[in-house]
């Protein structure tokens, strides 16, 4: 009886580990999609509203997917502190905080960092070009992320469960 309970516990916890790893893979495409939407909103604020960047970022943070709101929120807060920092620096600070909590990978981060270099420093047309470029690059990453997610989500879910079973068999 006790053996059976232990076996069940091992299978259960291995399955959970597998699912956690898998969820990392399925979260990334969702977050990228949310980022794409948010950047689209930013584009609208810049092109039609001509909203100043600190407010535009705050507006985007309010309306976008809560999972990525932190990035825009922090960037906006940093800009409003008036410590004499540039948009690039505040974007970098925000990204540094956001990245470890997100499911994004390094190439996603690089794309976002590059966007920081151009934020707010040029006229409207130029800003729109940079935002569009970032969205194009993120779309490519999104396709890859979805591929990865489809492949790996199932793999890790099964791997967790089956790994648990294997352990049980070995121990018994």
């Amino acid at each position, binding site marked *: 009886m006790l053996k059976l309970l232990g076996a069940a516990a091992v299978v259960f916890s291995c399955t959970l580990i597998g699912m956690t790893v898998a969820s990392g893979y399925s979260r990334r495409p969702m977050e990228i999609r949310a980022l794409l939407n948010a950047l689209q909103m930013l584009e609208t604020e*810049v092109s039609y509203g*001509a*909203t*100043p*960047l*600190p407010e*535009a970022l705050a507006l985007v943070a309010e309306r976008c997917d809560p999972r990525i709101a932190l990035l825009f929120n922090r960037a906006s807060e940093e*800009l*409003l502190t*008036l*410590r*004499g920092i*540039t*948009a690039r620096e*505040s974007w970098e600070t925000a990204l540094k905080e956001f990245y470890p909590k997100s499911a994004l990978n390094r190439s996603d981060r690089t794309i976002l960092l590059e966007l920081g270099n151009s*934020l*707010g*420093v*040029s*006229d*409207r047309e*130029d*800003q729109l070009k940079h935002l569009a470029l970032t969205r194009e690059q993120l779309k490519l990453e999104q396709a890859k992320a979805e591929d990865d997610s489809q492949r790996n989500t199932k793999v890790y879910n099964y791997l967790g469960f089956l790994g648990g079973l294997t352990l049980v068999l070995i121990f018994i």
Partner: protein
Amino acid sequence: MSILRPMQVLDAEQTMLDEVLTLLPPSLRDILSNLPVAIKNSVEEIRVRQGRPLMLGLAQRDGYVSHQGAILDSEVGAYQVSATDIERVTQLVSRSSLYALEEELRNGFITLPGGHRVGITGKVLTEQGRVKNIKYISSFNFRISRAVLGAADRVLPYLIAPDGRFFHTVLVSPPRCGKTTLLRDLVRRLSSGVPELGFPGATVGVVDERSEIAGCYRGVPQREVGPRTDVLDACPKAAGMMMLLRSMGPTVIATDEIGRQEDIAALEEVINAGIKVLTTIHGSSLEELADRPALQYLFQIKAFQRFVILGRSRGVGTVEDIIDGQTLRSLGVKLC
């Protein structure tokens, strides 16, 4: 926003420069906050030019600024403005939103919270012969706007008739002689009323094309302009005067730097509507003004009742003379 503090009375001087300092990058801010207090109080301009020394425009002269925040007479040892400084200043004065300031860049200046102005030069982009934008910004001129409350006290008695009516008044002055400062204070006094001269408070409409009079930031006056004052910010003068005339029922319309033909036409209409006019003109004497084709007509019909001539002979804002518009004779005023 935190920098939007209401105008303070008279400890103003210190805060005025500090307001601007918050918009400078730390490298420049540290230097300028080390300036001696006496200098801080007389700074009129901060000149930031890429690859050249940091300079200040003071009341009577200008000077280079050293790394320690001392005023130097020669370029040796002066702080050199770097490309990074310029980049940071650009971001800070635009609040990282150059794209939102295309209209301002076309005019060559940005108004800051507090009503200070930053003049900007660089490479100009044109489209079909019209200025489209400024790229590669390389020079800034921060003009510190000071509210001198009380600037109008000495001239007001000459501008209000014994029966308590305000005369149509023009302030005539070369640049940087305190024209806008006097105009702003006159607006404030007319708006709140001058009981000692029997003048009740009047509704004043201000057309502030260059955002200098009221120093509006997002439409809200940052300068003390009085309780009965409505401001049309960044509005072309001629159109603005008509708008005020129709919509706000002003008793006095105030505007800055009249000169173009359409301004004159609008002014005439305002005067015909029985509304008092308070305006300024670039120039140093009446004779000079009378030669300008656009103004000749107004002189002919003797539209203005008072001319206040400003100069710098005894410091900024010296009232050189006040002239009666009908007789073109001096009212015998030599004030200091």
